[in-house]
């Protein structure tokens, strides 16, 4: 895994299209990178978030915290926290499981 702050494509990531907070309800995505300090990262990790993990956005109303399903667990994430999780969208046929 490359370090976040060296990877040029990540410099514009926050607020851009490919963070978790922008994904509509029902879509499945794959985690590409998580931004933050050790503390934040290890809390995410212990709840099942790691780069490469598939997760499904269960609920996202465009404001307020969102709900995702990751490793058989439903997790509520604050919007700011969701913005720090960068994702890759999956092809349509990958969705739905």
């Amino acid at each position: 895994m490359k370090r976040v702050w060296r990877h040029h494509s990540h410099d514009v990531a926050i607020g851009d299209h490919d963070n978790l907070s922008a994904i509509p309800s029902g879509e499945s995505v794959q985690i590409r990178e998580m931004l933050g300090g050790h503390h934040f990262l290890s809390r995410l990790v212990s709840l099942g978030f790691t780069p490469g993990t598939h997760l499904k956005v269960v609920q996202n109303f465009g404001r307020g915290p969102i709900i995702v399903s990751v490793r058989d667990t439903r997790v509520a994430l604050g919007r700011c926290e969701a913005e720090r999780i960068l994702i890759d969208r999956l092809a349509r046929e990958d969705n739905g499981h």
Partner: protein
Amino acid sequence: MAIEAQSSSAANPQATQQAAQQAVSVLEGEVTLTVALAGQPNVGKSTVFNLLTGLSQHVGNWPGKTVEQKTGTYRSQNRTIHLVDLPGTYSLTANSPEEIIARNYIIQERPDVVVAVVNAASLERNLYLVAELFSLAKQVVLGLNMVDVAEGEGMRVEPRVLEAALGVPVVSMSAAKNQGVRELVETVDRVVSGELICEPNVPEIRADHREVLAEIHELVAPHTPPPYPSEWVALKLLEGDREITEMMQSRCLPPECWEKVHEILMDHEDAVLAVASGRYDWVGRMIRAAVTRPRAGQITLTERLDRWATHPLWGLAILAAVLGVVYWLTFAIGQPLQQFLDVYVVGGLANAAAIGLAGAPAWISGLVVDGVLGGVGTVVTFLPILVIFFAVLAVLEDMGYMARGAYVMDRFMHLMGLHGKSFLPLFLGFGCNVPAVMGTRIIDSHRGRLLTILLAPLVPCAARMTVVVFIAPIFFGKAAMLVAWGLVIFALAILAVMGVLLNQWVLKGERSAFIMELPLYHIPNLRTIGIQVWQNISEFLKKAGTLILVMSILIWALATLPHGEIQTSYLADVGKALAPLGSLMGLSWEMVVALLSSFVAKENSIATMGILFGGAAGEAGLQSALAGVLSPAAALAFLVVQMLFIPCAATVAAIKQESKSWGWTAFSVVMLLVLSLSAGILTFQIGNGVL
């Protein structure tokens, strides 16, 4: 593999077991064993603990920490087994005091067996903790709990396959239905007796970091202090674990060695993710064969319920309905019971004491009837409401709803630097501030809890509203209702402002990220709830009860000594000394004394006014007397102060009990004192100009 110790023992396990046990008891007599219970939150760990230990539990604190420690005993095969409930944690990294406590206990106290309770419905994430446990403890038994919930979610876990993969015994359980607990106890016994051998399949780090881990291990191994496994220390250093890094750097490693280690660590700052991914890869291998999902893609109960419960609009409506039920219960059951206790139990005792002490000096019967029984009465009459609130909290928490309520309120609580979880305790404050303060236990971060505890007394409780409802009509006639509502809104506005201010200036910094598990819904276990209510209540009686009694006697003494009358008492002297301050709010010394006496119980201020303003002619007489001595502006100032004043003795006792700090208790009292008096003075000065 968890294997039978000898092939012959498989044929006759009973005999081997007995023989092994006899051998142990011959050697050491009555042996006590220690078993630690580990697990992530929401796995039913406390249900398992409660089933095993029942009422033999002891609740205290972990040494030097504000985290609750539960221990208890159970008996099996003529042995007393000492069971320690480790705090529920998602991992064993130094993210929180709970995680440090859990791992330090295992490292330093070396329990004979660690029982890891996991939730079968979210096995993948739950085994992450087990992966960490395996590098610290060898004698592990896996309690595969909530298999019924998992099946409801369309998942089946095959315990024997999991057992073969993990190398430790696996026991299938539904603790909430009391299934599998006996088997768990037997399995622990068989591990202790050596009949079952645990060979945990310890996860390895991902291949790309194996070399660097070996490098670090080689450097630190000679300097690792005894109870710590050196491989584990190397791994934690690589993970960037704060506590272990600090320990090794400042106390264990020689400077030049630390330099080398530090250099390696700097080059692998992202290793925390590699280590974690390695653990999840391991977990994936463990469960691949053991978990089957016969009906993938079905819509589960939790999903269906959450469409409503977490909806921004319907979720709020459901929360409002839940709270409505809580209030209905309080008023329909709690209040009549409270009155019954007050009149018949406390009143009866007071009468009996008065008759029994008829011949004794007046001060003795005064001390017993007004001081001691007054205090006991306060404690006793709190009980019905506390039981209701604690039971409701426990039910909501146990069935999984609490996290949903917190989720829908998070947007609003966010402004004060709080999480949604703080909403419920604060809301309970409208009934009574005591359960509000005690209810903050559901908040996981220490800072969030403290902030909520400090804000809770600003929620106007029912007793404060009694005073408002008594005084407002005298001065504001038809507008009294408006004034009462205005005061509530005013108090809540102050609460919000104080929340923002405290968050910005006093408790700033570590606002933890909002990452919260939404557990699966399930039927609550009545036994767990019963034990939890019983524990909370007995703790309240033991700790807060004593403090309330002492404060009640103290206030009685101040209001009685030296001449036996409140008019000439020390309390009156204090009131008179504070008269200049009172006059800034348009209040006479009598009103200041009435405020001070509200410290015992909020509704006391009315009784005190009754005594100080002649006492005759009952309620109506007091109302007309008050109309004579107070201007409307002064009355409003009095009500404003009353709303924000120091909470009652019971709440202060609860604040001390829950914050475990006299410092923060004093901070709370001083903050409210300054707040209420300045608001009172402002109200009077402005009101005097306008009214």
